[in-house]
C-alpha cells in the first residue's frame, strides 16, 4: 500500500529537466505501444515510469533499471499526444538516479563500456542475420579500434574509475 501523504509528490520538479510537463500525461500508453523496448525482457514501460515520478515513488524509482533499457529510438517522442517527451523522461530519470545514489551502477553501464550500447547487442546477432542484416550493427561495436578509444575515454569518468572491477574488457 502506498501512503500518498508520505511520498514526495513534488518529485517531478526534481527529476524532469529536459522533458515536457509530465503532469500532462493522461496515461494513453501510446509511448509504450510504439516502444521496441516494451517487448524486451524485462520490458520497459515508459508510461509507468512517468506515473512513478508523478506519484513520487522515490525508492522504487531509484531501484528501477528499466529506464536503462530505452534504445533511444525516439518513437515515443514522436507519438506522445501531450508533449511529455517520454524519451527525455527516460534520460532524466537515468541522470537523477546517478546523481542521487553514488553507489548506483546500473548493469547497463557495463554493457555500454563493453559494446557502446545499453542493450546486449551481442545476443541479437543471429536474429539480425535471419532478417538479412549484417550480424554486427554498424555502430561503434563494429570498429574495435574506435571502441578501444571509447573505453579509454570512459576510464576517465568517475563511475568507471571507482568501480573498475566491473569494467574489465
Amino acid at each position, binding site marked *: *500500500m*502506498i*501512503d*500518498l*501523504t508520505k511520498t514526495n*509528490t513534488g518529485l517531478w520538479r526534481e527529476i524532469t529537466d529536459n522533458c515536457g*510537463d509530465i*503532469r*500532462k500525461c*493522461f*496515461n494513453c500508453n501510446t509511448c509504450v505501444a510504439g516502444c521496441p523496448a516494451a517487448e524486451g525482457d524485462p520490458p520497459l514501460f515508459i*508510461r*509507468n515510469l512517468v*506515473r*512513478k515520478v*508523478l*506519484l513520487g*515513488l522515490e525508492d522504487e524509482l531509484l531501484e528501477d533499471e528499466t529506464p536503462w533499457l530505452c534504445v533511444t529510438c525516439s518513437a515515443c517522442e514522436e507519438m506522445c499526444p501531450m508533449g511529455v517527451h517520454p524519451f527525455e523522461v527516460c534520460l532524466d530519470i537515468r541522470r537523477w538516479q546517478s546523481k542521487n545514489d553514488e553507489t548506483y551502477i546500473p548493469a547497463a553501464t557495463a554493457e555500454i563500456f563493453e559494446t557502446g550500447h545499453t542493450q546486449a547487442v551481442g545476443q541479437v546477432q543471429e536474429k539480425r542475420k535471419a532478417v538479412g542484416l549484417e550480424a554486427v550493427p554498424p555502430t561503434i561495436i563494429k570498429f574495435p579500434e574506435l571502441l578501444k578509444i571509447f573505453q579509454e575515454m570512459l576510464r576517465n569518468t568517475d563511475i568507471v574509475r571507482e568501480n573498475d572491477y566491473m569494467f574489465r574488457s
Partner: protein
Amino acid sequence: MKRIGVFVCHCGINIAETVDVKRVAEEAMQMEGVTYAQDYIYMCSEPGQALVREKIKEENLDAIIIAACSPTLHESTFRAAAEEAGLNPWQCEIANIREQCSWVHTDREKATRKAINIVGTIVQKTRLNESLEPIPVSITKKALVIGGGIAGIQAALDIADSGYKVILVEKESSIGGHMAQLSETFPTLDCSQCILTPKMVAAGKHPNIELLTYSEIEEVSGYVGNFNVRIRRKAPFVDWSKCNGCGLCMEKCPAKVSSVFDRELTTHGAIYVPFPQAVPNKPVIVKDSCIYFKTGKCRLCEKVCEIGAINFEQEDQFIEEEVGAIITATGFETLPVADLAEYGAGDVPDVIDGLAFERLLSASGPTVGEVRRPSDGMVPKEIVFVQCAGSRDPERYKPYCSKICCMYTTKHALLYKHRVHDGQSYIFYIDIRTGGKGYEEFYHNAEEEEGIIYLRGKVAKIFRDGDKTVVWGTDTLTGRNIEIAADLVVLATAVIPKDSTAELVKKLRIHTGPNGFLSEAHPKLRPVESINSGFFIAGAAQGPRDIPETVAQASAAACKVISLFSRDHLEQDPAIAWVDEDLCGGCRICISVCPYDAREYDEEKGIVIVNEALCEGCGSCVAACACGATQQRNLSDSQIKSMVTASLRGE
C-alpha cells in the same frame, strides 16, 4: 369500386435485399380493387413522392397504399403527397414491410410471401376506409411550468417573453433550484449566484409570469391545449402581501432547523428564508419545527413583526387554472451519503458530498467561502475527491453515469487550491468524462496548473482514524494500492431524480424510464417532448445534465410550447373511437378500460360519449364493448374481419 394504387419501396437494400419487391408489386396487381402497382427504389424521395402524385392523377386512383417502412416515419409524408394530388389523406395507408418484415427475416421466399400478405391485408382495410376530416381543438394559450430551477426559470422567461402567460410553480419558498447552491460554475468559473439572480429577479417581475412558490400540483385533468390544473399553495403562516422582508422574525426565532440549502452544515430558525437572494424574499414557518405549533407557546416572531405579517391561522389554498401546455422541470437530487456503506454511510463526519462542498466554497455559504471541515472547522490540507460515488455501479447503486461529476470534481479541486494554496488534492476516478465545449481544456489546465493528483481507480473503503479520514483506493496505472490519510473527503454522489417526481408523473400521466428520470418521446428526434401531447420536459429531471445543457433544453421546450400556441387551433386525428347511439346500452364497461379518460357517461341520453380531444384511438373500448356500439373510424369491425380473413388466406 375504389381504384387502389400500391407503391412498393425498395428502401435501398433495406427491403429489397430480403423481399422480392417486384413480385410484391406483381402480386398486388392481382388483388381485388388494386388497379395500379409499382415498385421504386426510394418512395420517400422527392421523385418517389412525385411518382405517387402523378399516378394518383393519371390512374384516377381513389386510395393508395405505400408498402414501406413504419407509419411512424413516413405516414405524414405520403398523406401530404396524397392530399396534394387531391386525395383525402385518410385514403392513404402504409403497409409496413420493413420493420415488420424485411428487417426481421432472412429467408427471402418466406419474407416475400409475408410482404405480399401484409399488403393484401392493408388492401382490405383500404377498400373500406372513409374520408375523414381532422377534428379542431381549441387552445388555452397559457403555460404551466413545474419546478423553478434554472430549467423552469429559463423556460418560463422564454415563453413569457414571446407574449404568452406562464404559471411557474415551485415547491420551495424560493425559485433557483440547485444552481443557487453552487459556488462557481465550470468551465468558466463564473459565480453561480451572479448569473442566476438576474434571471430569478426577471422571472419574479415579469408581467406575464405568475410565480407560485411554496406550491405543488394537486391534480391535472384535460388534454393538450386544454388542461385543468389544481395547485396547492402551502400556508407559509406569513402574510406575504404584508411582509417587507425585514428579517426580524428570523433573528428572534429560538427554534433550530438544520438547513437543507446549506446541506445541513448550518441551522436556521423555524421561520426562515433559504438564502439571502431568495425570490420571493419572504419567510415561511416550518410547522413541524415551530415551538408554538409543537407546544402552544412562543409566538416570538409575531411579537417582533411590527407590521403583523405572521398569521398562525393561515391554511393551504387551492387554485384552479386552465393551461394549454405543461413543462415539467423538477430537477434532481443526489444519492445520500448515508446510502454508501463503504464510504462511511454518513457516519464519518468529514465525508461530505459535492453539494456540501459547494456550500463550503460559496462566498455566501456557512464559512463565507473558506474551506473548513465540518468536524472541527480545520482547514483541510489533504483532501480526497471520490468520483462515481454510487454511479456506474449497476450491482449496488445506479447503472448510469451522472455526467456532471467529473467536471464539478475537477472544479472543486481547482477552487480548493485557489483557497488553500499549500493544500494537496487527490481525485479518484474510473474515467474522466469531459465531453462539453471547453471541458477537456478545463480539466487539463487543472491537472497541470493546480498540481491535482488524479488516481485511476475506485475507492473501496473510507474510515475514520483519529482526526483523519482514511481512504483506501488503488492506482490502476501502477497497479498499486493507495492509502491517503485525509483531512476531508468529498464524494461525487450519483445524480438521482427528485423524489417527489414519481408522485407528480402519476398526476400528470407522463412517463419515467427505469431510473426514474422523465422519458422523452424520442431520444434523438423529440428530446424535449413527453410521449403524451401537450407535456414537455426540461433540465435534470430528464437525466443528469449541467447548466448549459439544461438551459438549452429549457429554451427548446419553451420553443415547442410557443410553436403550439402560435396556432389558432389544434388538429386531432379523426381516426378515433365513436359510439353508435342506437346500439350503446350505457353499460359503461368502456369507461373503465379507457386509459386516457376519454369516455364519459351522458346522464341525459343514458349512453357513453367520447371526448374526441382525449381519445388516442387505442381501441381498448372497441374491444370491450359487448354490443358493438363502439367503433373506431377506419378500423371498423368489418374492416378488421376482412383484414384477418385476408391475412389468414395468405398463409
